[in-house]
């Protein structure tokens, strides 16, 4: 399927039912339908309310530390010998990742709705930390659901959340990772829907979450667009971002979707390789289905059961993906590709050694693909990579793989 991108189709999705083409929607239990309708109507009002926008902008500037720099990785670009690579430094945000752009926004919604309690799911712990952080600042009660397997892998972030006053609940059902944490958060929400706001961390889930998370993350792309023009005098030739649920990628891509000449690459977690079946790449190797409130591409077996995924990065270890990505794949606007665990680990080490910037393993997937892409391009061309988070949280994982004992 192709579309004429001169027409402003990108502003027309999602439609009133939360659909991006065939994807998205509201596939949840009846008990939650009322809460989603309430959230949608509050958000519709606040998203055009100048006071709310000003409050959000203030927080983004003075609490998160925006705008984040667009940094030209000259030494790394030269060593590859192709395009100029610029890094959008979301790793420099307060709490160390792009996740906080969204939690600041959703927590303000919770405050305006008078909800005293927030819950969140988390994989790597970055969204959990960002939620616990803003909950501490606004004095909201906070509970974070995290798969038992991820609690083990990300012990440092678990302790960070506890220091921030959040209650971290290890989830022992299913595969004990991000998808199960999301199941458990939904169960909590259905039980405590009167006083609880569910802060979803990615552009997935039932409508209006894919819309509002996109809106809160688009600050990344808006800044990058302006910064690229200031620094290079034109728009970039290509954008690269990793895709788990896909919030950092949508945040970077969305403000450029109508710029026909800007190519876009969403990099999924290739794990041990697509052929191994141990990966987390639903757009590359999955099929459409329904999970966690929306219709999208999923990793599923022949009976429609959700498959266990694998990625070295807990933040990408998820069998679904935001519905807007599913749509962007089908209409051919964004190219979805993979980077394996090994490729991401190599990129982690390369950027650390060549630029003195230690990326999150999630972001390292984008870097790994950007390196290949840059090599095929000319030195006059420009790539912007979303460096969605910093790698401190992954030092333990990397050390373990390298056989280092502390």
């Amino acid at each position, binding site marked *: 399927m192709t579309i004429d991108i001169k027409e402003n189709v990108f502003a027309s999705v999602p439609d009133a039912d939360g659909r991006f083409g065939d994807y998205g929607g509201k596939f949840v239990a*009846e008990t939650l339908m009322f809460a989603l309708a309430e959230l949608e109507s509050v958000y519709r009002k606040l998203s055009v309310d100048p006071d709310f926008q000003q409050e959000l902008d203030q927080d983004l500037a003075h609490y998160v530390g925006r705008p984040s720099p667009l940094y030209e990785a000259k030494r790394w670009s030269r060593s590859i010998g192709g395009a100029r690579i610029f890094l959008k430094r979301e790793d420099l945000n307060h709490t160390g990742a792009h996740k906080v752009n969204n939690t600041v926004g959703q927590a303000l919604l919770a405050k305006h709705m008078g909800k005293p309690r927030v819950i969140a799911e988390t994989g790597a712990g970055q969204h959990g930390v960002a939620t616990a952080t803003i909950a501490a600042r606004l004095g909201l009660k906070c509970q974070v659901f995290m798969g038992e397997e991820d609690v083990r892998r990300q012990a440092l972030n678990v302790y960070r959340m506890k220091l921030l006053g959040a209650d971290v609940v290890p989830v022992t059902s299913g595969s004990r990772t991000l998808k199960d944490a999301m199941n458990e958060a939904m169960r909590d929400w259905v039980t405590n*829907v009167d006083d609880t706001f569910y802060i979803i961390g990615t552009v997935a889930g039932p409508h209006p979450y894919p819309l509002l998370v996109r809106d809160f993350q688009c600050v990344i792309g808006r800044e990058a667009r302006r910064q690229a023009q200031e620094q290079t005098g034109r728009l970039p030739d290509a954008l690269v971002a990793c895709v788990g649920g896909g919030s950092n990628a949508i945040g970077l891509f969305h403000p450029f979707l109508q710029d026909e000449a800007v190519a876009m690459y969403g990099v999924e977690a290739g794990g041990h390789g697509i052929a191994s079946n141990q990966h987390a790449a639903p757009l590359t190797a999955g099929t459409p289905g329904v999970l966690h409130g929306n219709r999208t591409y999923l990793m599923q077996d022949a009976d429609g059961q959700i498959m266990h995924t694998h990625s070295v990065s807990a933040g990408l270890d998820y069998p679904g993906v935001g519905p807007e990505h599913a749509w962007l794949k089908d209409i051919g606007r964004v190219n979805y590709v993979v980077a394996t665990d090994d490729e991401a680990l190599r990129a982690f080490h390369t950027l650390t050694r060549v630029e003195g910037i230690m990326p999150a393993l999630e972001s390292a997937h984008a870097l790994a693909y950007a390196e290949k892409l840059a090599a095929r391009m000319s030195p006059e061309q420009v790539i912007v990579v979303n460096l969605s988070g910093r790698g401190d949280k992954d030092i333990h994982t990397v050390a373990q793989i390298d056989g280092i004992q502390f």
Partner: protein
Amino acid sequence: MSRIAGRFEQLARQGRKALIPYVVAGDPGLDVTVPLMHRMVENGADIIELGVPFSDPMSEGPVLQLGHERALANGTSLRGVLELVSEFRKRDADTPVLLMGYANPVVHMGYAAFADAAAAAGVDALLTVDIPPEEVAPVNAELQRVGMDNIFLVAPTTPTQRIQRITGAASGFIYYVSLKGVTGAGHLDVADVARHLELIRGHSSLPVAVGFGIKDAESARAVASVADGVVVGSALVNAMAQAIEGGGDHEAAMAAAIALLVEIRRGIDNAAS
């Protein structure tokens, strides 16, 4: 008239309320489900609700989550569940069978293929927890084509206008979720349930069954005094799991479930009289 509508009519004539037991197909074993269904019918079940196991059962409490996990570990698939219903139908042509589960296995099979296979197997109705009226049109078209009922949930949070929309798309009966929470939760408020049932009945002449949080003869009696039917799930699944944990075999598990079912039947009949 559908088997479900017929069953509720028959019960109404007799002045009885429907007992609707829920078990997860394939739990505790694939060989248990069909004999258990027959024994539940012999011991007072009016409609059987078979849970279709799913890897991510988002509305289930801990007891049914484990039931789904055990059933999947036993190799239960949606097609396998349909085979179990076919097997059940060889000896029982009268008892309505309702499948309850999540969207994705049905979506993956395809609505048309599912409707054909389910109707051929003798399934009477489908209840998908995560397909609300907003998303139901394509599946409803297929269910109607083969004469199957679509059972919808109404929740304590459902506003009045939505009740109208839901009852408009529903057939068979309305399933009222008695509490805000997951299956097996323990904070049932019968007066509150009664208020909501009155609201629902103001919009629909369909029978209303109540589920979530009914666990014994007393809670079943209380709910049956206001509802047309009582759904019991987690308590039965838990009774079987406990029996097996205590060293019992599948026969012991079935016996435990049936003992509880008989007690609950008595509770319901006490309310009706």
